[in-house]
């Protein structure tokens, strides 16, 4: 027995379902996973009356219960299985009133599965504007279930809906109205019913029509169903299409009685805006302009809060260091844990800003136009217009970007998108780019207004972008697929972004980043601390004594830096660095850079932190000019040349553009592709690409 009743929100994409979810649950929501799949499961709680709380489950938007993508599959999986822990006690079907006919299709299908339902007519204001009025009382009488009027954006009608949910949970009225089926279909139903004990006719027929998609049945039952289908020569496609046509006929009949349409057809604002935004020249100019604006603001606006976080973490660290005894445990806490957490927190502003922009683009309806604009261009590179969203998002972080590739229906397009997305420069590469560019690119203006460092930075981003396209193009030929891909999608009307919704998206993405990526980064920081603090036998202590003996006149602070440096050299990390040195010397790196490469293997952002530890900047580690100066003065002991020469720095930059140095990304690719095959291929191809390119650039420049 479940202790809480579950109310599921269902509806077409763009029907205002997520607005309603936020209105009902406020901040009382959490994101989990549906068992077995990685589709985000949004759950919230809503107080209906003084004593009654219900669980609100936000199911992915879909046009019917016949899924075309992974997200949509969840809807079928949940609704077709009354034993599913998420099976709702009540379904609230959110319908766009300005498009009621199409929205009713899903409603009818859900109702026929036997789920008690409420029909929520949303966006009545939009409907009214286009001259549509709906008699919801009459509609409710015809359907036999409650029909509620709603404006989820403005929060109008929410209390009424809560009240109706409360009542419907007591009465659980259903609306069962399946279309008439032919004789063959009826026999199939009888057989499924007797073998599987499914009384509901429409549900039983779904067993037959979509057996392969109903994972909960298990292999044996799926096989049994296939036999039934074969025996009766049951054509699932035909069943679906005649069902759809039949339902639409029935819906039209119903709607004729309740909908009054005053045919005022004029060119809508959306059509006017589309003339400009999809213009063959202006369309692209505006898109590029928007992208440019996003990057400019992400990097400039985010700077101040990032500095603030940086200083805040440093302050906490200082406070802990000065108020706690100086021992190994405190060192683990401060240099390991707090530093690690700081490395996670510092990316929050950039991620928040980038997702703010992305969510505004999505909210306003512009993203769908970008998909249209880019589809033909990007199709040449083995992807779909829908890949644009992941590619843009991955400039913040590849992890959510790869997850957003789920909307791509074709497996091949989706796989290629997943495989090339990490080549786009994410925000974790930014600190590496910034510091190395500052070392070797002069801070001067070219042509009067281009800042050379800015140009170099942009060049690295473009390099990532073009290599992603190239990789996609190559994979297009390597991957064979007979699967048909569909592009068809709805173009939502332009809307003012709902700021609350934008806020929710930011919160959600930041939370995911902090907890998902954060876990890894913190773990690595601790491991790194251990490896850098301990060494085989007592080599570290001996080296430390030697330094003190050699430099009797040095000031305490300088001596401390020197000690830190030799300690590192003799630690496990130092030994690792020396061990891989032969392999990375052709790229222009020494063992110290080797340590940074190894540690940043789990997460690139560790690089700058490691480098700052290695070159023993100690207390001033947070001060970037000091790191820069120190790196600039660092001299290779063997050649006598600066370690961070132009060749080495560019080699490192190129290496980080291509290298797959992010455990979180590999983990998410593993989850999304359900196996180790693709993440391993991705790791190998990106590593090879990084090594070869870095080698080439180093040899060319030195």
């Amino acid at each position, binding site marked *: 027995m479940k202790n809480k009743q579950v109310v599921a929100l269902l509806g077409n994409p763009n029907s205002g379902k997520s607005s309603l979810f936020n209105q009902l649950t406020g901040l009382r929501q959490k994101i989990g996973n549906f068992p077995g799949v990685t589709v985000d499961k949004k759950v919230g709680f809503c107080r209906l009356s003084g004593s009654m709380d219900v669980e609100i489950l936000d199911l992915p938007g879909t*046009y*019917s219960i*016949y899924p*075309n993508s992974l997200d949509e599959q969840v809807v079928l999986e949940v609704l077709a299985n009354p034993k599913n822990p998420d099976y709702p006690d009540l379904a609230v079907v959110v319908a766009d009133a*300005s*498009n009621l*006919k*199409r929205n009713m*299709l899903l409603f009818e299908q859900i109702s026929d599965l036997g789920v008690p339902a409420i029909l929520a007519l949303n966006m009545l204001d939009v409907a009214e504007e*286009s001259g549509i009025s709906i008699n919801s009382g009459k509609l409710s009488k015809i359907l036999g279930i409650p029909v509620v009027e709603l404006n989820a954006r403005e929060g109008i009608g929410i209390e009424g809906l809560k009240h109706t949910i409360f009542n419907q949970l007591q009465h659980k009225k259903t609306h069962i109205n399946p279309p008439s089926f032919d004789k063959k279909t009826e026999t199939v139903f009888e057989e499924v019913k007797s073998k599987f004990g499914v009384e509901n006719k429409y549900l039983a027929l779904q067993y037959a029509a979509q057996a392969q998609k109903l994972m909960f049945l298990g292999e044996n039952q799926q096989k049994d169903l296939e036999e039934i289908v074969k025996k009766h020569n049951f054509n699932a*496609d035909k069943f*679906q*299409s005649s069902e*759809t*046509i039949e339902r*639409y006929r029935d819906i039209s009949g119903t709607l004729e009685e309740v909908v009054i349409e005053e045919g005022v057809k004029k060119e809508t604002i*959306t*059509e006017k805006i*589309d*003339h400009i935004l*999809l*213009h*063959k*020249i202006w*369309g*692209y100019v505006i898109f590029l302009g928007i992208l440019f604006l996003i990057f400019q603001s992400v990097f400039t606006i985010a700077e101040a809060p990032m500095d603030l976080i940086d200083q805040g973490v440093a302050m906490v660290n200082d406070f802990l260091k000065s108020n706690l005894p100086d021992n190994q445990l405190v060192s683990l806490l401060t240099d390991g844990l707090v530093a690690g957490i700081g490395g996670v927190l510092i990316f929050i502003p950039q991620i928040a800003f980038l997702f703010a922009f992305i969510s505004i683009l999505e909210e306003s309806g512009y993203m*769908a136009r970008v*998909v*249209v*604009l880019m*589809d*033909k*261009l990007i199709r040449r590179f083995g992807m779909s*217009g829908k890949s644009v969203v992941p590619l843009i998002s991955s400039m913040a972080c590849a992890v959510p970007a790869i997850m957003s590739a789920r909307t791509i229906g074709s497996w091949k397009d989706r796989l290629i998108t997943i495989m090339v997305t990490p080549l786009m420069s994410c925000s974790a590469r930014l600190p590496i780019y910034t510091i190395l560019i500052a070392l070797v690119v002069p801070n001067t203006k070219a042509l009067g207004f281009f800042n050379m460092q800015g140009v170099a930075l942009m060049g690295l981003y473009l390099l990532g972008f073009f290599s992603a396209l190239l990789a996609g193009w190559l994979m297009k030929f390597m991957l064979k697929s007979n699967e*048909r891909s*569909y*592009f*068809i*999608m*709805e*173009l939502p*009307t332009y809307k003012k972004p709902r700021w609350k919704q934008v806020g929710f998206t930011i919160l959600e993405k930041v939370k995911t980043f902090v907890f998902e990526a954060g876990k890894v980064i913190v773990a690595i920081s601790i491991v790194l601390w251990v490896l850098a603090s301990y060494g085989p036998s007592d080599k570290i202590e001996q080296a430390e004594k030697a330094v003190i003996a050699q430099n009797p006149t040095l000031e305490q602070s300088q001596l401390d830096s020197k000690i830190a440096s030799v300690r590192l050299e003799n630690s496990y990390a130092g030994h690792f660095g020396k061990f891989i040195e032969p392999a990375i010397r052709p790229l222009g790196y020494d063992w110290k850079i080797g340590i940074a490469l190894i540690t940043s293997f789990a997460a690139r952002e560790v690089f700058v932190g490691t480098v700052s530890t290695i070159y023993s900047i100690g207390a001033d580690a947070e001060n970037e000019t000091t790191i820069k100066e120190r790196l600039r003065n660092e001299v290779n002991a063997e050649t006598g040349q600066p370690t961070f020469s132009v060749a080495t720095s560019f080699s490192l930059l190129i290496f980080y553009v291509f290298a797959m140095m992010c455990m979180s990304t590999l983990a998410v690719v593993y989850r999304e592709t359900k196996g180790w095959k693709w993440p391993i291929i991705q790791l190998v191809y990106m590593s090879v690409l990084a090594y070869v390119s870095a080698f080439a650039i180093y040899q060319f420049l030195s």
Partner: protein
Amino acid sequence: MQAEKTVADLKVGEKGIINHFKDDAMSLKLLEMGCLPDTEISLDFIAPLGCPVGITVAGYHLSLRKREAATIVIK
């Protein structure tokens, strides 16, 4: 025999009535999106590079590739 006219043959702004679909798998998707036989369909725009195209059917806008539009036969 004259080739059937499809949505892909329409000019921007032109209208037609859906007759039937050439491709079964594609038709399922179109049907559920509300592209039913005997419904009016109009071509709103052709994307800058000639594909995808935008259509209005039953009062809302869809975007689909030219190849997909060519499976919708109009009267």
